[in-house]
């Protein structure tokens, strides 16, 4: 069987099996499946020939009357995200080991199905298939948030569901429009289609709305802080670590090469919105009282920068976006995991109530520092590599916008250091005296995440060289003009 379709179906099947497994041990099954998936991911990485062409292609007819095919393949851009997904999912599953979730069979089954859908999004080469996976990814996360969420989960998840659904339905309109123009859903045919300026604008906005909501970009972000806060830790990690990359990936794959004229026309608006979002979300984060909400806002700021860099349609910007997606995935999953570790022990995520934990948990502190540094983009951590390239890309596009966006490095330092101080430093608090030691699974997850943050910071070439040819090929349409 082809590796790409194995990547898609293995977690799906494993997820279905997990549903039937009404036993606590289901988590080991889930972990095993995720690790096996990682193994396949690494095999793909190993067999992948660096270049711009799509590899491991499967193209089978599916709904023939509508020209819909099961058409998947992997190029450098997909590969990076597939690797990210296969790397993060086992970590996310492992991170949930120390918490007992009710109905674990459904919980882990949903996670695996979600992984399958995410991989599907990243490898689909047929627009309709892409849409199916896009929507499929929403369903498990909706149930994860709804069934295991916190306060107000019903209302918040409903809003999240509707909001993203509206976006994807609009995108479906764009996909059908392109289908009517080309008579096919295949990615290559979309690339070849020639559209007038107005048609490009239409397609651009229909696609962009879906992606912008998913990322999310200011002012479409308001579902996100509430959802991140209400979702269970695992759900938040899936949402922030992988799912929001769907939006960014969508922009790179389905907007930039297909409607270049519209990107040139409307890109400035998007970039300005993103830059506003960066500063806006960073400013809001400063005074947040809830640890989770704070990280949620910081995530909006980071993603805003990625979006701005990508829309600069420079190699530097997009490559920066690629590496920053990976980096942000690790950082944000790490941060939310730290929040979860603290939350399970202290029963609170209110910054005012926390403090002095460093005395009880020196190991956690070190990990927190490393992940925090990645998040504030200190050189030699992954965050810097990405942000530096994004700033360069944005600067080439427009120096003033880059200057405004760069203010986030100050604001980021302010809110992250504040948070770190409020949570970890200060006089030890009596009520946290019995702060439980970290168990092995927790330590393992944190160490792996920290390792990647440092590794990417020091030697990002491993990842950069994978996507560079694909990104360059993708941008040829701009340089040709």
């Amino acid at each position, binding site marked *: 069987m082809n590796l790409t379709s194995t990547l898609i179906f293995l977690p799906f099947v494993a997820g279905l099996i997990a549903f039937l497994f009404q036993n606590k041990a289901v988590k080991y099954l889930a972990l095993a499946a995720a690790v096996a998936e990682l193994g396949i991911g690494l095999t793909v990485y190993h067999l992948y020939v660096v270049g711009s062409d799509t590899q491991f292609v499967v193209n089978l007819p599916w709904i023939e009357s509508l020209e819909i095919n099961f058409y998947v393949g992997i190029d450098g851009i997909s590969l990076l995200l597939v690797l990210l997904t296969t790397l993060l999912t086992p970590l996310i599953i492992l991170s949930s080991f120390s918490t007992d979730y009710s109905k674990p069979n459904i919980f882990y089954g949903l996670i695996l199905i979600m992984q399958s859908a995410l991989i599907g999004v990243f490898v689909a080469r047929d627009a309709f298939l892409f849409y199916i996976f896009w929507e499929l990814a929403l369903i498990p996360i909706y149930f994860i948030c709804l069934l295991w969420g916190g306060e107000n989960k019903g209302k918040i998840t409903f809003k999240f569901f509707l909001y993203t659904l509206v976006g994807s339905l609009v995108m479906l309109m764009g996909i059908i429009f392109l289908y009517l123009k080309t008579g096919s859903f295949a990615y290559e045919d979309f690339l070849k289609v020639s559209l007038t300026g107005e048609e490009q604008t239409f397609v651009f906005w229909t696609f962009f709305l879906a992606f912008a909501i998913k990322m999310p970009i200011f*002012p479409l972000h*308001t579902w996100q802080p509430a959802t991140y806060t209400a979702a269970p830790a695992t759900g938040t990690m899936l949402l922030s670590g992988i799912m929001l990359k769907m939006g960014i990936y969508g922009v790179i794959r389905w907007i930039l090469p297909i409607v270049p004229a519209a990107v040139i026309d409307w890109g400035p608006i998007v970039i300005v919105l993103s830059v506003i979002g960066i500063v806006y979300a960073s400013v809001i984060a400063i005074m947040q009282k809830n640890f989770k909400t704070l990280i949620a806002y910081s995530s909006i700021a980071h993603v805003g920068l990625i979006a701005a860099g990508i829309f600069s349609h420079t190699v530097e910007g997009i490559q920066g976006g690629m590496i920053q997606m990976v980096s942000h995935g690790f950082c944000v999953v790490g941060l939310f995991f730290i929040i979860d570790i603290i939350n399970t022990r202290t029963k609170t995520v209110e910054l005012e109530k926390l403090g002095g934990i460093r005395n009880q948990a020196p190991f956690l502190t070190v990990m927190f520092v490393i992940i925090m540094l990645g998040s504030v983009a*200190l050189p030699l951590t992954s965050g810097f590599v990405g942000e530096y390239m994004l700033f360069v890309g944005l600067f080439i596009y427009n120096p003033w916008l880059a200057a405004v966006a760069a203010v986030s490095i*100050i604001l980021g330092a302010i809110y992250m250091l504040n948070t770190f101080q409020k949570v970890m430093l200060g006089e030890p608090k009596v009520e946290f005296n019995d702060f439980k030691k970290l168990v092995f699974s927790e330590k393992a997850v944190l160490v792996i995440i920290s390792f990647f943050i440092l590794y990417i910071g020091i030697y990002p070439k491993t990842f950069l060289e994978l996507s560079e040819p694909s990104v360059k090929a993708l941008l040829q349409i701009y340089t040709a003009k």
Partner: protein
Amino acid sequence: MLDLAYLIPLLPLIGFAIIGLGNKKLPKFLVGLIGCGSILGSFLIVLSLLIGITSGSIPNATTISYFDWINAGSINLSMSFLIDPLSVMMMTIITGVGFLIHLYSAGYMSHDEGFARYFAYLNLFVFSMLMLVMGSNYVVMFAGWEGVGLCSYLLIGFWFKNTNYNNAAKKAFIMNRIGDLGFLLGMILIFVTFGSLNFSDVFSQAPQIMKANYEVGIAITLLLFIGATGKSAQIPLYTWLPDPMAGPTPVSALIHAATMVTAGIYMIVRSNVLYTMAPFTLDIIMVVGIVTALFAATIGLFQNDIKKVLAYSTVSQLGYMFFALGLGAYTTGMFHVTTHAFFKALLFLGAGSVIHAMSGEQDIRNMGGLRKKLPITFWTFVIGTVAIAGIPPFAGFFSKDEILAHAYERSPLLWGLGVLGALMTTFYMFRLLFLTFSGSFRGTEDQKSHLHESPISMTLPLMVLAVLSIIGGFIGVPEVLGGTNWLANYLAPVIATVGEKEVHALSHSTELTLMKISTSLVFLTIIIAYIIYVSKKIMPLPEGKESGIQKLIYNKYYIDELYDSIIVKPLRLLSDFSGKILDNTIVDGIVNGVGKSVEVGSKVLRYSQSGSISNYLFIMVIGIIIMLVINLIK
């Protein structure tokens, strides 16, 4: 020796890794050994490089690339080091002074439970600082630049249970980051303009490109200078430097006096080719430098915390160095960096020795008469004070005098201001010296019984630094005194030729006269200080009793409060406003409004379902008729 260059930063990094991973499991002795040993190893390699460069066996500029770091599109950065006179000179200071301070710390911190953590941080700092000076492109330099900021954050907040220390650490990091923003943007602008960030590429293209894009050149140099003001504590970003004096004293000596804060000066000297092409920026640097020098010196006049005095003195001396750079005298700036590293590290370590003996007391009003109890500390402190005051033939004299000579060339007024700064420095340093060491002891009985001279690991570095403070100036003896300026020759390959032409435009007789004037004024100031604090025994006022201008100065002109009310508070308000009102009510309100409007719409529309069949029939018929009519009209 060049092929061992990678070991120079790597040894401290390995030291950091071993100590950091071992942490409390390692015995203190081993931690100290690894910590000091790794730095000593680096120092020995650096020394061999230094000898190689002075003897000419190592070429003047060697770039060694190790691996590709960030590559994408036109970005082509490698992890590479540049070995040239300037970097080797800085490396010598960093590893040399760094080693002495490590040694000192082994004694100073011996009772602290965070001993291993302290050494881990300190080694990480040396690593970062070495990255900063060794980098052969701006981004590697930036990596070190931010790295030292991080270590400074970690070390200031070393005693993390204390909220004030944590706040000071945070403030230092954020202020630095403001500067870093300037550096980052300047760096990217260089990249966009020159297409490269390697020093060699940028500097070789600089003359043509900077001429063609004058404004861009000004922008680049100004942005980089903003970075320098953050790191080197110049107006308006200087306020972070006095606060971190909360951290361990050796840290203040190493980071906040000898090395990290001079990074800004190093960076400008490194980029001197660019700055020489942007005279406008140089003028700004000169003004900022001299204003900072004078401003900080006035604050230093009335401080009572032994470390605060030294901190403001550092800000002031850094201002002096920028003043020199602004005058285009890059070598002179570096000269002062070197001598300052010796005597200011000495002074800080001396202060640390005093604080150690006084069981943590830092207020000079509670000291006095320590000369007898701490003889070595006293004599080394005297040497440091004399050196900073600029009395020949101590180190500070030569470097300060060179700056003043350059200032006089530009304008006698600048010379006057420079001398004024020097006199204030002399005054507050001797005030500090007299209040601490002469007179009678003013502390508690408990403190008195504990007074003791520090152990050898602490006094040895003091003595070495004292010797360096005495002889350090001889690397740059001016011609007028019959010497040769070894340093100028040494640094010549690095410095743009344009800037250094006018060095000796001053006639020897004028120069000699100026020297005589400034030196005699310095002696006069010392006598005044002696009269006030020794003969008349006038004590500084207790807390809260100051009035008028003295109160204004004692409270540092309320600059911190000013920043707090014009920046920090508005930012918080803005954050609260954006978070609570803008985001929750307006932006999210619109989103919820869309949902609500659907709800409201459906509520309104459902009333059309009256349930009365005759109504439905009626509407149906009307509908049919309307359709018919429309059809007819068409």
